[in-house]
């Protein structure tokens, strides 16, 4: 019975901070917290199935991006002994169009380029760039300022971290409300 009530309380609506711009056409399911100055484009999907998702400030989540905290493949939702793990995403990250991220821990200033695919057991530190169409599904911590690129997922280390997209965020926060309705959180 404890488990049942836990599951019920987890089905809250998303907690969206006041400075965030989340379009109503985006799909947000489960216990999701979104920080201030984060922009979520229409058709982006943030799905917290197997645990909550906490997203920091200043993130840019573009169209058709999928951030999902899902159950690992061999575990069914109702099996016993499954803990809900929280997915944490830091600040100033960019999730480009069509990417998919299942990584449980993402730091700051990372860029996940279009159609990239991150596995659940990855941990991104900061300044990492996962190149377009790169599928990375290893169980490791990616060191800072790593760039993964190319069809063979080659790696190199860059000397500068990617710049935070402040200009783009400011622009979007001004323009998007002119064309889309926004999701707001009911404050308790």
């Amino acid at each position, binding site marked *: 019975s404890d488990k049942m009530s836990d599951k019920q309380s987890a089905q809250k609506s998303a907690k969206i901070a006041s400075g965030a711009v989340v379009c109503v056409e985006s799909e947000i399911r489960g216990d999701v917290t979104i920080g201030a100055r984060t922009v979520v484009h229409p058709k982006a999907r943030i799905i917290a199935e197997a645990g909550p998702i906490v997203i920091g400030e200043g993130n840019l989540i573009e169209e058709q991006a999928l951030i999902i905290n899902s159950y690992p493949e061999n575990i069914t939702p109702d099996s016993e002994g499954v803990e809900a793990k929280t997915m944490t995403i830091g600040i100033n990250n960019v999730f480009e169009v069509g990417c998919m991220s299942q990584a449980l821990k993402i730091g700051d200033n990372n860029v996940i380029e279009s159609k990239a695919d991150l596995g659940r057991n990855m941990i991104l530190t900061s300044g990492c760039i996962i190149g377009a169409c790169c599928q990375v599904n290893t169980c490791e911590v990616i060191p800072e300022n790593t760039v993964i*690129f190319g069809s063979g997922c*080659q*790696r190199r280390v860059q*000397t*500068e971290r990617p710049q935070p997209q402040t200009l783009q965020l400011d622009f979007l926060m001004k323009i998007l409300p002119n064309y889309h309705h926004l999701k707001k959180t009911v404050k308790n």
Partner: protein
Amino acid sequence: MASLLQPDRVLYLVHGEKKIRSPLSTLYFCRYCSELRSLECVSHEVDSHYCPSCLENMPSAEAKLKKNRKRICNQLNENFRCANCFDCPCCMHTLSTRATNIPAPLPDDPSKTAMKKAYYLACGFCRWTSRDVGMADKSVASGGWQEPDNPHTQRINKLIEYYQQLAQREKLERDRKKLARRRPYMPLAFSQHTIHVVEKYGLGTRLQRQRPGAPITSLAGLSLKEGEDQKEINIEPAQALDEVEPLPEDCYTRPINLPEVTSLRQRLLQPDFQPAGASQLHPKHKHLLIKRSLRCRKCEHNLSKPEFNPTSIKFKIQLVAVSYIPEVRIMSIPNLRFQKECQVLLTLTNPVENITHVTLVGCEEGDPEDINSTAKVMVPTKELVLAGKDAAAEYDELAEPQDFQDDPDVVAFRKSNKIGFFIKVVPQREEDGDVTVSFKIRHDFRNLAAPIRPSEEGDAPAEAIWLTHHVELSLGPIIA
């Protein structure tokens, strides 16, 4: 099924130095020789050089002129590289120039600072920047970037000059020997030898157009060259050393910093320096690409000549086979059974504007061209008539459909310049592998490029000649 339209299902045989079987879409048609030509029986010539990213043109004649005129070797033109564009040394993508604003003191008043633009090179693919190797930002958007100098440039240039002179001298001696021996037949022997021989020491294929019946010009050329190269170039031989630099002491104990180690490909693309560390990888100018023209080896006419402008994909001369020869394509194949007669539907398309008559003939026993067929084929015996290609046909509603009186057993359908017809196939081998059939197609061809003969009254329409091609079709596996 799209797989039936794959180009390698239908092959045409080309009679050249080698017998080549290849799809019609890859072949050329020399309308002066009236024969099919493949890429292997034509000579490929460089038309012009262009940079693939900035699309700047550099005709090869100009590039070579610059090389000979300037005694100081202009590296950019000699190596056929673009002056403006760079390649990323890490991933070989094209580098783009980015600008940042940096505060810089005003020249008039050092105490005030104004925002000045600083430019650096960056790769959009692997995120390499010119700052990674310590190259300072430049104040101009283009033209400020220099490749590092090779310390061995002078020695290499001297060696190149010496060996070029040597090669020329050897060539003169060789040609003079040939001259002495075969004086009456000289022009032909000379031209066949020197046109396609790649000269030693990389001087490149020099195409010397020898006009038949003019032996004097070649001799004149020889004596001129002799007069020019009076100056002897001497080089010092290379010196062998006994001692080699020893390895550093921590060679085995120092931990490897993997991101700093260059890959073989990165290293070898910079043959001057071949740096082992990624912090020594400097960007190189982008290599130029060529536009190539093709020439028939027998009659020396151009078969394909692209336009000069790099942005244009059209051709000045484009004698491709699909515009002259009727094309056979496979439309549908029933289940093929061993030693059972099956009916295959093929299409024939007429590429020219006049009516074409096509006769199909099966290959005879012991035909030397028929080496791959694994099935017997019965082709229609009657002559097939193909209507001309009429671009305006679909818009012309009043046109009367031409009546060709097709035999419904042979011709399945007819649609403007295309007909579908049946052939009967009896697979003869039960093994794995595709059923292959071959036959010959004989069609009439009106040569519009034939030289204009003085005609008596009334121009007769161009004479039709009959061409025969050997065609092989790959019909797929036998279904048991």
